[in-house]
C-alpha cells in the first residue's frame, strides 16, 4: 500500500502543479528587452500620405432581415429577440436584461444631431433606425480602464439592409 502511495503522490503533485498553472494562466508578464540599442530620438519626421480615394461605405454587421414593409421589420418584438440572442456588441451585461424602449426612423444627418455628433458614415440622407435600449450595459476599454456601467444604450441599423452599423451607451449631450 505504502509503495503505491509513494508512486501516486509525486504524480498527483505534478498534476496539481500543472492544474494550478492552468488556473493561473491569466498572468501579466512584463517583458523588456535590455539589450536593445537605444537609438533614441534623433529621428527626423517622416511623411506618410493620408489615404485618398473613394471611401468604402460602411455596411455594418448582418442583423435584421428587412422585408418590403420596412417598419414592420423593425418591430419591438423582432428587435428584442435579436438583442436577447446576440446582445449588444461588446456588452458584458446580460442579454436577457435588454428591453427595447423606442424605435425611430430618421436620416443619418438627424441621427448625428441626436447623438452629439455621432453618425454612421453611410451618408447624411440615408435612412437609419435608432433603437433606444434599457438594461444592464457593461463595457470595458483598453487595458487599465474601469468597467463602465450604464442603464441606457442604443443601436443604429441601416434601414435598407437591416445591418447593425453603430451601438453604444448614451452620454452627455445626447437627447
Amino acid at each position: 500500500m505504502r509503495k503505491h502511495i509513494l508512486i501516486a503522490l509525486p504524480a498527483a503533485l505534478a498534476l496539481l502543479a500543472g492544474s494550478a498553472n492552468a488556473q493561473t494562466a491569466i498572468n501579466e508578464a512584463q517583458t523588456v528587452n535590455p539589450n536593445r540599442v537605444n537609438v533614441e530620438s534623433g529621428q527626423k519626421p517622416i511623411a506618410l500620405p493620408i489615404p485618398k480615394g473613394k471611401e468604402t461605405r460602411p455596411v455594418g454587421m448582418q442583423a435584421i432581415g428587412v422585408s418590403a414593409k420596412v417598419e414592420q421589420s423593425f418591430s419591438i418584438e423582432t428587435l428584442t429577440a435579436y438583442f436577447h440572442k446576440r446582445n449588444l456588441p461588446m456588452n458584458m451585461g446580460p442579454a436577457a436584461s435588454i428591453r427595447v424602449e423606442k424605435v425611430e426612423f430618421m436620416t443619418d444627418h438627424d441621427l448625428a444631431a441626436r447623438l452629439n455628433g455621432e453618425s454612421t458614415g453611410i451618408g447624411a440622407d440615408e435612412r437609419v433606425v435608432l433603437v433606444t435600449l434599457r438594461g444592464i450595459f457593461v463595457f470595458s476599454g483598453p487595458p487599465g480602464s474601469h468597467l463602465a456601467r450604464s442603464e441606457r444604450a442604443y443601436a443604429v441599423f441601416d434601414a435598407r439592409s437591416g445591418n447593425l452599423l453603430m451601438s453604444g451607451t448614451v452620454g452627455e449631450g445626447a437627447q
Partner: protein
Amino acid sequence: MDRSARYPVLGFLALIAALLFIRPALAVNYACGNPSSGHCYGVTQWTEKPEYFGAYTDITQVEMGCPSGCNGFVDDEIWLTDSHTAGCKTNGFGQCWVEAGYFFLDGAKNKNYFWAESKPGKSAAFTLHTLGTAGPSGAINHYMLIKDARGAAGVFQIWIYNTSLSTLYHGTSNNNLMAGDRILLGQELAGTNGASAAKAHFTRNIWAVKALGPEYVFWYNTQIHDGSVTSQNPPFASWAVHPGPPPPEGGDFTTHCCQ
C-alpha cells in the same frame, strides 16, 4: 495489498487519468470578462512621449472564431488613449480613447472591421462603429488614428485601408478633447471559452509627431523600444522582431489566441 486498501489507490489513479483528459479542454476556457471583471489582453504599450498625436500599424488578417456561447469576442487592434485629461479620468472608464481593428463577435458569421471611441465626460459614453466584413486571411491592412488640427478642436480621424485602397473606411471622432498619452496594439479577448485567433503580425509601428495639418500628411517617427508587453495567456503576445533600426519599421509584434 488487501482489497480494501487497493480501492482508494485505484480511485486516486482514476482521478488523475480523468484530470489528464480534462486538461486539454480547460486550455480553451478562460476568465476574460463578465459584468464584474475585465477583459484579457495581449498587447504592447508605449507611454514615454508627452503626447502622441496619432498611431499607425499594419495588421495581418488572420483566421478568427468565437462560436455562439463564447460570451464575448476576440480582436486585433490599435488604441490611442488618454488617462490624464480631467474629463477622461471621470468618464466612467477612467480613460478616453479611439481604437480601430477587426473583431469576431459571439456567434457572428464573419470577422468585422470596427472603430470605437470613448470621450471626456461624465456619462461613460462609448460608441462602436461596425464597418463591414474584414478582408481575407493573409492580407495586410493599415490602421491609422490621428488628431486633426485643421479645424475645430477635438477631432480625430480614423482610417482602415488596404494598399490598393479597394478598402478605405474612414471615421471621424468629434467633440473628443482627449490628448493621447499612450499607444497600445495587440489583442483583446472577452468571454469565457471557445475563441480562437491565428498568429497576427503588427508591423510598421509608428506614431504621429504632430497633428494633421493642411499638408495632409501623417508625420511620424518609428517605435524604437519594445514598450511594456502584457501577455495574459490568453491572449498570447510577444515581439517576433524587436523594434529598432528598420526594416521592419517598429518591429514585428505578434498575437494569437487561445491555446
